[in-house]
């Protein structure tokens, strides 16, 4: 016979103002199986908890129902109390009579009736509750960081400083990410390289960090604490252990017209190349598609001049398998393609550039070596026009619906730097709104207007016509003056919207991590778990989760690292015992559960079954890995034979609750 105790909380006046708590306690006292029922002002206070503990011990309660707030708020509190009293904590249930009742209703009588109904449902469930014990699994003390930009580097450094080994897997030949392409950073205008390259060197020299460049994640298996990852190393054609980065090969390479993605194809480079002078690791790699030796078997100059004998034309892609306890995703962003926006003539004129291209035009390591020259004829531009919100805040389907967040600030930076370096230049900025929340951000934007006399115009560019001399005839609106403007410009800079890097989506599928409609990784909770992916053991750093500037990225990377450290420091992981399990005798092997499982927790195995006639039958049945299962219950819903069930939320328990509510 069950002995259930019911404890009704006033929550100050939060509940008691709308719900007659005395009446709820009284009514519940008459329920079958309930041996004790009371109300109390603050159940979660230590005296409230002691009341629960005392009654469990005194009356030998076999189940407890707390009628109070949402289980998200205090389930842990009360379960701990039950544990203290020697009652298995999963024999305690909460009825949410605050968020789902007192806070949303006005009529006291109806709210009281609802509280009684919710409490009855909880009592009905407790009748069927069974003691559960969480299982445990080991933790592999190594972290994987996917993407070696500023986010990945910061996260890796923080984890490595805490004493754990970290591998940074980076697709390019150097770490550093998008920030390596940036000239200066807002709002301090310090040189991006000067703050970035020391961090890159720190990563290279840290004893706990391994840089795995020119590599991509191939497959990911396993679960929190025990990920098995296959990493694909792409052929470099240069032995990184021998190469000293002397650059002799680059001087001699005859294939000099190779598009340079680092300079966004504004200038060519050689087939054997070091991305930029401060690259980490500082080693050359060969672009096989453009190497004469690899393509045609004629040349071999670099191998001849290399003093370190590092060149290997026979290099092949290879796969390496490694084990990790935690994974940090930091795949970053890229600007959107502008092919949908033909009014700006981006495809028709080399003098229409994106903001990131303008960074390269300004950068000391860019094609102009620090002098801004327009791409069509190398002329110094006198009139430069900037357009913000290109593809951002666009619900027409041509762009992205969100605000990219950083364009207002980097456009102000570009405008200011241009006016500072070339005071004879006319700079126009077309804006919809200037959004500058952040420390010193609005002051920075105002400085561009007030001190540098950048012409900020509330309006937009409607049409751009490239002329034969390379100039651009721009038609635009000025909403405050209510005018249509016609400007002849030398250069047009477009603040293209941010979108997730193209590697993000396939990676999310490998990780079974969720994404939003725009392919940004989703966090576990928008406010309270902002750096955790809903997939356990996977953490998010930087712009893979949404548009961010550098300070936000670094802050988030540090937060993600601390969460990863919190995981890696544990020797054993206690799992959630409310996981799915399959009744092998009922499973028909249809695979529907495995198909819907968002965590990849369900596998199928061939199993021997002894039949009544003493024969053996081999059947394919589902098996759930309790360490991976998050207890979402999707499998129990699709299972056509009723074999799948969830501990703590079994079909029987749920239906008992429904019966209690409806009958």
């Amino acid at each position, binding site marked *: 016979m069950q002995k259930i105790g019911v404890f009704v909380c006033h929550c100050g006046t939060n509940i008691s103002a709308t719900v007659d708590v005395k009446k709820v306690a009284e009514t519940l006292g008459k329920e079958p199986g309930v041996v004790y029922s009371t109300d109390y002002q603050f159940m979660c206070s230590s005296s409230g908890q002691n009341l629960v503990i005392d009654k469990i011990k005194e009356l030998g309660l076999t189940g407890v129902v707390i009628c109070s707030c949402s289980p998200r708020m205090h389930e842990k509190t009360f379960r701990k109390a039950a544990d203290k009293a020697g009652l298995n904590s999963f024999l305690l249930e909460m009825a949410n009579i605050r968020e789902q009742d007192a806070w949303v209703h006005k009529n006291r009588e109806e709210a009281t009736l609802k509280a009684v109904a919710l409490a009855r449902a909880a009592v009905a469930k407790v009748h069927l509750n069974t003691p559960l014990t969480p299982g445990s699994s080991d933790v592999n003390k190594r972290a994987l960081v996917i993407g070696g930009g500023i986010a990945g580097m910061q996260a890796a450094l923080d984890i490595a400083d805490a004493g754990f080994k970290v591998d940074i897997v980076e697709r390019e030949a150097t770490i550093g990410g998008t920030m390596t392409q940036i000239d200066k950073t807002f709002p301090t205008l310090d040189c991006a390289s000067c703050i970035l390259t020391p961090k890159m060197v720190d990563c290279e020299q840290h004893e706990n960090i391994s840089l795995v460049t020119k590599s991509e994640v191939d497959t990911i298996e396993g679960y929190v604490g025990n990920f098995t990852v296959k990493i694909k190393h792409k052929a470099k054609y240069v032995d990184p252990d021998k190469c000293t980065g002397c650059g002799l090969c680059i001087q001699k390479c005859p294939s000099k017209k190779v598009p340079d993605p680092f300079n966004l194809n504004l200038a060519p480079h050689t087939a054997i190349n070091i991305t930029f002078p401060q690259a980490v690791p500082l080693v050359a790699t060969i672009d096989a598609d453009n190497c004469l030796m690899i393509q045609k078997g004629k040349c071999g100059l670099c191998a001849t001049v290399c003093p370190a004998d590092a060149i290997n034309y026979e290099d092949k892609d290879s796969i390496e398998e490694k084990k990790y306890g935690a994974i940090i995703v930091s795949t970053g962003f890229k600007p959107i393609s502008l092919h949908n926006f033909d009014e700006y003539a981006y495809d028709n004129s080399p003098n229409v550039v994106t903001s990131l291209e303008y960074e390269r035009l300004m950068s000391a390591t860019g094609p102009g070596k620090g002098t801004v020259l327009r791409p069509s004829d190398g002329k110094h531009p006198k009139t430069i026009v900037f357009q913000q919100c290109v593809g951002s*805040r*666009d619900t*027409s389907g041509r762009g992205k619906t969100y605000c990219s967040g950083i364009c207002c600030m980097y456009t102000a930076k570009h405008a200011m730097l241009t006016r500072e370096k070339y005071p004879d230049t006319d700079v126009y900025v077309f804006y919809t709104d200037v959004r500058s929340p952040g420390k010193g951000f609005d002051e920075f934007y105002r400085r561009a207007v007030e001190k540098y006399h950048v012409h900020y115009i*509330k309006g937009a560019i409607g049409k751009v016509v490239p002329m034969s001399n390379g100039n651009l005839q721009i038609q635009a609106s000025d909403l405050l003056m209510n005018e249509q403007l016609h400007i002849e410009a030398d250069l047009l800079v477009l603040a293209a919207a941010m979108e997730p890097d193209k590697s993000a989506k396939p990676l999310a599928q490998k990780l079974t991590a969720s994404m939003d409609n725009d392919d940004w990784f989703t966090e576990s909770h928008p406010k309270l778990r902002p750096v955790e992916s809903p997939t356990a053991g996977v953490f998010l750093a930087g712009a893979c989760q949404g548009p961010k500037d550098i300070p936000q990225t670094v802050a988030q990377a540090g937060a993600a690292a601390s969460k990863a450290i919190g995981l890696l420091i544990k020797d054993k992981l206690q799992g959630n015992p409310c996981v799915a399990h399959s009744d092998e005798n009922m499973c028909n092997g249809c695979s529907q559960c495995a198909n819907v499982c968002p965590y990849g927790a369900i596998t199928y195995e061939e199993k021997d079954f002894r039949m009544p006639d003493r024969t053996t039958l081999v059947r394919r049945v589902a098996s759930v890995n309790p360490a991976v299962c998050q207890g979402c219950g999707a499998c129990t819903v699709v299972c056509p034979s009723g074999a799948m069930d969830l501990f703590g939320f079994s079909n029987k328990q749920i239906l008992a609750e429904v019966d209690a509510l409806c009958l």
Partner: protein
Amino acid sequence: MDKNKLLSEQVQRNSGVDVSKCMRCGKCTATCPNYDLMEYHPHQFVNMVENDKLDVLMKSSSLYLCLNCFACVERCPRGVEPGKLVEAIRLEAVRQKENNHLKPDQIVEKLTEGMPQQAITTAFRKYTK
């Protein structure tokens, strides 16, 4: 309800345009090829509907200077489609003109069995176009 407010709602319903989606970027006015001849401009058309000031626009020649090139419809980042709005405002202007061949209260006496429905509808046409 205020006549202008009714008119704004009517115009939005007929055109399928929701003016509250406008984020005031000025793309429509920037893209308009007939800007110079207009007293009021595309972004103001949208604004006038939003602020129930259509009587002003309907008296202005700007309404008829729109070429219906639909450049603004093509370029508007919020899908507001000012060009479609202009169409609906013009339709409203035509409807408001007096001098129908027939007034609604005359219908009853004219509805004889032999009268084709088509004739009644036709009689609602305007004297002038």
